[in-house]
């Protein structure tokens, strides 16, 4: 489920529409055109979303669904694994996302630089990881990072560094997950930032250099403010993506070792498909949705345009 930024309701009809328009019956054509999409959306998105909520209020008792009200939600609060998953997700959010966005910003600036030859090749190169399938790259990373037979440890052993337990130690597994995520998503974020960067007027840089600003000052006072909307977008998207993280930990570590890389997504999947506890899994999904909504709002508040720039 993705979160749409809260937009002002557009339902308010402008009053004082011309009388002529009111007399003509509105043509049904546009509605017919959007009907297939709407029906599909209703059947494959809206219905499951609604149904999931209904399920979250139920529990299977002896094979029959029983209405249990908010029980599943109360159980969440008392579930240490839920908090573990939340904590792991929080760590990735607090550590990996800022690092990745800083890296992406640096990359965007570098790729925007006229000093660089063959820029398009680099751009493509950095963007390519994004188009690899999640499971495919997860498997590739798990092979590369294998403690005994992985290429990474083989290279490190050449440097005299002992085998690193990339996937078999709690902390290292978290680091590996962070590395994989960074490899996969940095280029994508860099491209978004780059697109915004190309819209920053050159005159501003000229003015800054006339005022005697060096490269760093120009970056701080011109580039960063210019990037703000794109930074907000990438932050919100990365937050949503991180909270929904599933494929990478599932493939790389299965959420282990000892739940060090357990994310809400993995825990949800496990409850549904290993434990057949669809009610609880649905409650998890709704808790996650609320969490994403709140964090998204918060970020818009903190980073959003306060009408002072531009």
């Amino acid at each position, binding site marked *: 489920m993705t979160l749409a930024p809260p937009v002002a309701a557009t339902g308010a009809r402008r009053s004082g529409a011309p009388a002529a328009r009111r007399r003509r019956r509105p043509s049904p054509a546009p509605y017919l055109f959007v009907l297939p999409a709407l*029906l599909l959306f*209703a*059947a494959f998105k*809206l*219905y*499951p*979303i*609604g*149904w999931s*909520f*209904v*399920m979250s209020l*139920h529990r*299977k008792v*002896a*094979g*029959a*669904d029983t209405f249990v009200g908010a029980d599943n939600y109360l159980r969440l609060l*008392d*579930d*240490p*694994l839920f908090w573990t998953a939340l904590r792991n997700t929080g760590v990735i959010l607090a550590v990996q996302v800022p690092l990745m966005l800083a890296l992406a910003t640096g990359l965007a600036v570098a790729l925007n630089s006229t000093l660089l030859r063959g820029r398009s090749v680099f751009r493509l190169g950095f963007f390519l990881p994004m188009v690899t399938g999640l499971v495919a790259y997860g498997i590739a990373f798990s092979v590369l990072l*294998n*403690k*005994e*037979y992985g290429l990474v440890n083989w290279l490190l052993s050449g440097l005299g560094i002992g085998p690193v337990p990339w*996937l*078999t*130690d*709690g902390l290292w*597994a978290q680091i590996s997950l962070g590395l994989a995520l960074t490899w996969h998503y940095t280029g994508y974020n860099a491209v978004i930032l780059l697109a915004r960067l190309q819209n920053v007027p050159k005159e501003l840089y000229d003015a800054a250099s006339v005022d005697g600003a060096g490269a760093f000052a120009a970056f701080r006072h011109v580039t960063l403010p210019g990037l703000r909307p794109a930074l907000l977008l990438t932050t919100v998207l990365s937050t949503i993506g991180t909270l929904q993280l599933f494929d990478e930990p599932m493939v790389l*570590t*299965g959420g*282990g*070792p*000892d*739940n060090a890389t357990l994310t809400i997504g993995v825990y949800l999947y*496990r409850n*549904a*498909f*290993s*434990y*057949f506890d*669809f009610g609880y899994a649905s409650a998890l999904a709704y808790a996650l949705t609320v969490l994403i909504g709140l964090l998204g709002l918060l970020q818009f508040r903190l980073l959003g345009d306060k009408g002072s720039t531009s």
Partner: protein
Amino acid sequence: MADVETNNSTAPQDRSPQGRSPQGRLERRSVLRLGGGAMAAGLAAFGSLGLTGCSGDGAGGLDGGSGSGAKGDPKKGKISVWSWQGPAAELKALVPEFNKTHPGIEVTVEDIGNPAIWDKITAGMAAGGQGLADVLHIGVDYLPGYVERFPGGLADLAPLGAATHKDAFAAGLWGTVSPDGKKVNALPWEANSAGFYYRADLFEKTGVDADALQTWDETIEAGKKIKAKTGAHLLGIDKPASQPDAANFFQTLLQLQGAFYFDLEGRITLDSPEAVRALTLIKTMNDAGLVSDLAGGWNALMSSLKKGTNAVVPYPTWFGGIIEEQVPAESGKWKVRLPPAVRRGGTTAATVNSTHLAVSGSSQHQSAAWAFVEFALTRPASQVKIYRGKGIAPALMKAYDDNVFHEPSTFFSGQRKGEVFLAALKAQSPAVNYTSDYARALKLVTDAQSKVLLKGAEPAKVLAEAAADLARQTGRKAAK
């Protein structure tokens, strides 16, 4: 082969279109289209169906758990079979023979892979049987869960005549497939006893007589000598539990003491003295540096076989075939025995798992599917062929009359491997109650084991925590 005359002809030919899912769904879809939207559909379902659509019964096309009896033509139809790796290959190899007696039934065997198959079956069951194969290969660890959570998800085989085979299988297994003694949810296929495969050459080099090892304590002492002399570890465990089956060895130690994660009433016994004893043994081995890390699951296990990392592989019956397949050049270096006891004089026989073939409740060709299941599992010749192919030990006791189970095995240094396990199968093995919460228990146990192996945690403490967590998650009581 005359003894497998299927008795489907006498089964009632129920041709009533039961629980037709399209209809059930259409009704609900039309509610959708009538502008009710999703919630209305949900509410409608509330009122009328009591939430059956999402759970794999009622509206999902299953008939609410009544078990459908014979469906379709026992002589004709296209059926699909889901299994994994070795067993899938063996089922495939049976098809030509099956078609000699059942030319009208077209069988497609699909190797879904293990553990992928469990998720796939679960998803199919949750969708009301949509997209499930007609025949499903199900392990004992999952069978009770499917039966309990998805009533009607598996066809009742009793109306098809399954009960006539009740006494054909190893003791205790009928209780697994037919807990209430009336409905039959599946037929037993494999019966795996705990085993102790070992590299005889490493033991000999060290001067330890493997056959004389009475207890695991003695085995640990032997392991220390082997490590000092040859560098090989005693055994390997997937320490970070990268795969769900990382606690196999722990479970074996538990079952050798006649204990399990639940008692027969379904109460939690995760932190029983037996469990603490088992995990303490593992910790002792690990602290002595005798346990190699098989992180990565199957591939790591295979490469450890090839590299000779471990002197012992404490795996069940079926693993013998894997060893022969993986390291054919080591013929004569391996031997097998039943595992040592946990306590002196304790039992060395334990049926640690079994697998079964079931027919899905949503199958339109249940009679044809049953014909195949019966052919594969109740006909000794089929089971003998499967054992010759992959060393998969049958639950069908009659199969053991065949010479293949009594021949000396060249690979296993001339031992009669089949007889080793047959002795275990004939020994009284206590019933094991997997319950529908086995997957949860297993996860908590593997996590507890990881804490012990990776962080040096105290077995009693982590097992107590695991038991408390399991009680909280499932609402089950502790057995104390």
